[in-house]
Structure formats: structure tokens, C-alpha cells
């Protein structure tokens, strides 16, 4: 039969592709029947997926711990605040991505010669710097504290975030499989060796750092109208730097889907549990993180591949036994 043959030859594609298609159909149709609560919840989860996946694309593979997501995310928010009266929403999303890209390019050129700890601290400082400068400039130039964003309906925000999520994940998927992905991994493995194998490590690091900032900036633009009011503290909140890192560690950075899983789980827990049990939530969050780091250094993705290995070994054992019996 044609259908059975199709299924057997394209089994892997179907196994991955079908669930993805179902999820995508579910997500695109949810504003038609889901309530406001669900739409807003999913928007937040998608935002974290974008932040975690793009953070892990750069930091997970090169080993350069960036604490800068909040800087690019906040830049996106302020791009929205300043341009909302002049440009249409979709154009601002693109502009926000580009502004973050340029900011990351400049920062990267200065700092990516720093290694390890120093880079992490500099990117941390960048977030504080952006926050202070924005706050000061607002007071002096615009004579205001914070910015009001004209509200946009929930469904539009949701669809915008969904599109950015799909674009981000596709881009990261292909980058991971490309030569650029291999050169990032080898920088993470041993930067000196990578440099001696013909990789322009500075160029690779600056470029990929800036690419990851595009997605963070775009997500910031889309998030601004959801908050209605933003100021420097809200836009450049360090939560936006730390959450993606914790989510990526929880999900596991070795696999493409690791940070996505981490963002979905923690995004959901944060939105649902934090409101009710704010103190206990942070306590539970801390305990879970410690447990994961101690017992699952490669996160959920690491656990999954470990189980896969075990199952494969068991199967092999069974086959060997059958051979022995016959």
C-alpha cells in the first residue's frame, strides 16, 4: 500500500513533523475559542521561548555567559514606545530587532575579546547601564518618568509573538546545523584550537551574539503594548536576563528543544503559581534549580537522551538474547 510505505519511509519526519503541525494549528486557532487568560498566558510563554532559545543559541554553544538579554529586550520595548506614533506595529518589530542587533554588534566588538567571568560581568553592567541611561534621558529630554503604550488587542499581540517565535526557532534550528553552528560549538570546546583551525573567532562571536539580540529585541517590541505602561526599571528588569538562563539550564542546552521545554514549563509555572503563592513559588523554584544542577547537569534534554540510550541498550540486549535462543 502506498500509505503504509509512505509512513514507513518517512517515519522520523512524521514523528516530529505531525506533532509540530498539530501544535502550530492549535496555537494559530486558539484566539478563536480560547479565553483572554489563555491567550495572555501563551503570549508570555512564547516570549520566554524566544528569550531562552536565542540566549542558548549563543551562550549555550560558545560558553560565553551573556547576562545581556534584558538590555536587548528593553531596547525593543523602548523602540516601541518611541516609534508607536510614527510607524505601523509590524515595522516597529523589525526596527526593534535591528536596533538591538546594532547595539549587540557594538557591545560585542568591545567585549567579546574578554573571556569567561569578565564577559558575564560586562553584560550584566550593560543592563544596568541601559536602564540608568534610559531613565536619565527620559527625565532630561522627554521630561517624563516612563512611557505609555497605546494598547493593542490580545489576539494581535499573540499572533505577532507566535510569528516571531516561529521565525526565531527556524533561524536557530538552521544556524545550529550550519557551519556557523559548528564554529560556535568549537569556540565553546576550545577557543584557541578553533582560532588555529581557521575560524575567525571574534567575527563568529560578534555576529552570533548580534543575531541572538535581534530576536530578543523583537520580543521586547511585542511585549511593550501588553504592559501598557513601561519605565526603565520595568523594561530593563534583570528578570528578563536571569529567567532565560534558568529556563535553558532546566531544559538543557545540548539539544535544540531543551530551552524551549524549559521556557514552557517555567513560563507556565511562573504565570500560574506566582500570583497565588509568590513566596513559596520562589522557594520551590530555587529548590528545583538546585536539584536540576546537582542531578541533571544536562537538564531535561539530558535526561531524555540518557533514557533513550538505556532503552536502546535494553532492546539490543533483548535482540542478543533472542539470537542466543534461536
Amino acid at each position, binding site marked *: 500500500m502506498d500509505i503504509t510505505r509512505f509512513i514507513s519511509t518517512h517515519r522520523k519526519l512524521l514523528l516530529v513533523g505531525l506533532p509540530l503541525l498539530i501544535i502550530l494549528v492549535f496555537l494559530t486557532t486558539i484566539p478563536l475559542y480560547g479565553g483572554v487568560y489563555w491567550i495572555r498566558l501563551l503570549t508570555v510563554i512564547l516570549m520566554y521561548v524566544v528569550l531562552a532559545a536565542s540566549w542558548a543559541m549563543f551562550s549555550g554553544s560558545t560558553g560565553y555567559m551573556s547576562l545581556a538579554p534584558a538590555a536587548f529586550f528593553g531596547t525593543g520595548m523602548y523602540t516601541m514606545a518611541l516609534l508607536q506614533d510614527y510607524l505601523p506595529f509590524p515595522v516597529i518589530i523589525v526596527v526593534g530587532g535591528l536596533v538591538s542587533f546594532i547595539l549587540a554588534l557594538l557591545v560585542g566588538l568591545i567585549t567579546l575579546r574578554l573571556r569567561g567571568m569578565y564577559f558575564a560581568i560586562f553584560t550584566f553592567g550593560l543592563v544596568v547601564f541601559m536602564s540608568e541611561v534610559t531613565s536619565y534621558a527620559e527625565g532630561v529630554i522627554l521630561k517624563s518618568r516612563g512611557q505609555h503604550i497605546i494598547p493593542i488587542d490580545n489576539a494581535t499581540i499573540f499572533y505577532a509573538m507566535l510569528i516571531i517565535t516561529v521565525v526565531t526557532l527556524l533561524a536557530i534550528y538552521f544556524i545550529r546545523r550550519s557551519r556557523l553552528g559548528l564554529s560556535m560549538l568549537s569556540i565553546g570546546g*576550545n577557543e584557541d584550537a578553533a582560532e588555529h*583551525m581557521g575560524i575567525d573567532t571574534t567575527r563568529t562571536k560578534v555576529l552570533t551574539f548580534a543575531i541572538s539580540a535581534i530576536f530578543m529585541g523583537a520580543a521586547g517590541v511585542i511585549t511593550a503594548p501588553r504592559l501598557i505602561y513601561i519605565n526603565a526599571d520595568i523594561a530593563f528588569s534583570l528578570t528578563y536576563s536571569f529567567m532565560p538562563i534558568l529556563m535553558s539550564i532546566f531544559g538543557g542546552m545540548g539539544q535544540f528543544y531543551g530551552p524551549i521545554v524549559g521556557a514552557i514549563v517555567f513560563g507556565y509555572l511562573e504565570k500560574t503559581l506566582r500570583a497565588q503563592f509568590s513566596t513559596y513559588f520562589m522557594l520551590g523554584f530555587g529548590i528545583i534549580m538546585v536539584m536540576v544542577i546537582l542531578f541533571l547537569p544536562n537538564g531535561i534534554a539530558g535526561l531524555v537522551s540518557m533514557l533513550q540510550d538505556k532503552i536502546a541498550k535494553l532492546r539490543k540486549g533483548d535482540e542478543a538474547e533472542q539470537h542466543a535462543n534461536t
Partner: protein
Amino acid sequence: MRILEGQGVTKYFGGLAAVSNVDFHIDQGEIVGMIGPNGAGKTTLFNLISGALPLSSGEIRFKGQKLNGLKPHQICKVGIARTFQETKIFGNMPVFQNVLVGAFFGSPNRVPGEDAAREVSQALEFVGLAAMSATPVKDLTLVNQKRVEVARALATKPELLLLDELMAGLNPTEISEAMEMVTKLRDKGITIFMVEHVMKAIMGICERIMALHHGEKIAEGTSQEIACNKTVIDVYLGEEAHAGG
């Protein structure tokens, strides 16, 4: 033909001259050895050639082209590859991917995927690691990690290969295999410049040897000439004789 030539090569670390006014040359198709006590400046000289460190003064030319100011990734593309004294591998990546990095990025032109995969297979075949291409490199023994480094360097298609203490930490059988491998590399048309402490290896395969001491070149010649050289015996072999005796 001179493939590599250094004139007045000097490197200062603060006030200390790690390499001081060294003139040297490597001819095409040669195996040249470099010896010297610890801290003589051998690895520093390699780092100057491969671009890991900038020169304080002097100049290094590769086939007539000045290398001064080039970055390691540019020097690799020119045709000089190296291995490291302390292995620098991509530990979490499989053997195949490690070597693939060299094949993809080591050439000045873009290498198509199929060609790169073929080069990797050939390089792994050459160093005898074809059966382990899927193993993460961190799980390999030291000798096999060193072979990965050679295969990775080989995949960049070098004309000149710098081997920094390839034999250090290997057992006698592994040393003989490594010596054979170095000779085979030369037979493939690759010029070899090697730093080595294993005297049996360096005396056995090098056509010419230079000796460094306190950053200065104190002797140069065939293995016989070096073995009989009074200065070399005093500063280097002499020390060892005392230590051994």
C-alpha cells in the same frame, strides 16, 4: 626552496626575552626538529609562527609572504597547521566533527560538504581512528586525542605542520607508531617542524635539528652534529646525563 624563514625573531614577556634574535629556516619537504631544555622558548617560537602571539621584533616569512600581524585563523588558511603541547580538543564533539572543523574552515576557499566529509574520512584513516569517528573526543586516550589533533591539522591541508611535543606522555610502542606517522606525513609532501623531548624520536627522523637555550639558538645541524656539539651537551644533554647518572 625555503618554505619558512625567520629573521631576528624576538619575543619579550615584560623584560624577559623568551625568544631572542633567532634566525631559522625550513626547507620544503624537510623534517626539522627543535630541542632545548624546559623554558628555552620552543613553544613560544611556535606560537609566534602560528600567530598566537605577536612578535616583539624581527620577521617570519612563509613562501616569501610576511606573516607578521596575521591572526592564527589567517595563518592556518595560508597553509600552516599545528598541534598543541597540551592537547586542545573539542571534548564534547565526536572525533569526526573535530576533524570536520579543520576541513571546513582551514582552507582559504569554501569547501563543499561532501569534499569536507571525504577529507575527514581520509585524515581519520591516515591516523588510524576511522573506527572511532562517532566517539566524543574527551573519552579517548591521550595518544588518540593527539591523533585527533594531527588529523584535524591534516584536514586543513597544510603545507607546513608544526608538531609541539607530539610524543610526550606516550609509551615506547606509541612513540614508534608516531615516528612512522610523521615520516608518512612528510612522504605526503607536508613539511614538518617539530618540538620534541624524546631524543630517540628526534634523532631518528629529523634531517636537521636546531637547539634553543634561554631563547637563543645555540646550535644547528644534523642529528650527529647536534649529538656531538659541545654547547648542546653542556646545556641540555649534559643536564640529562647528570640527572640520569
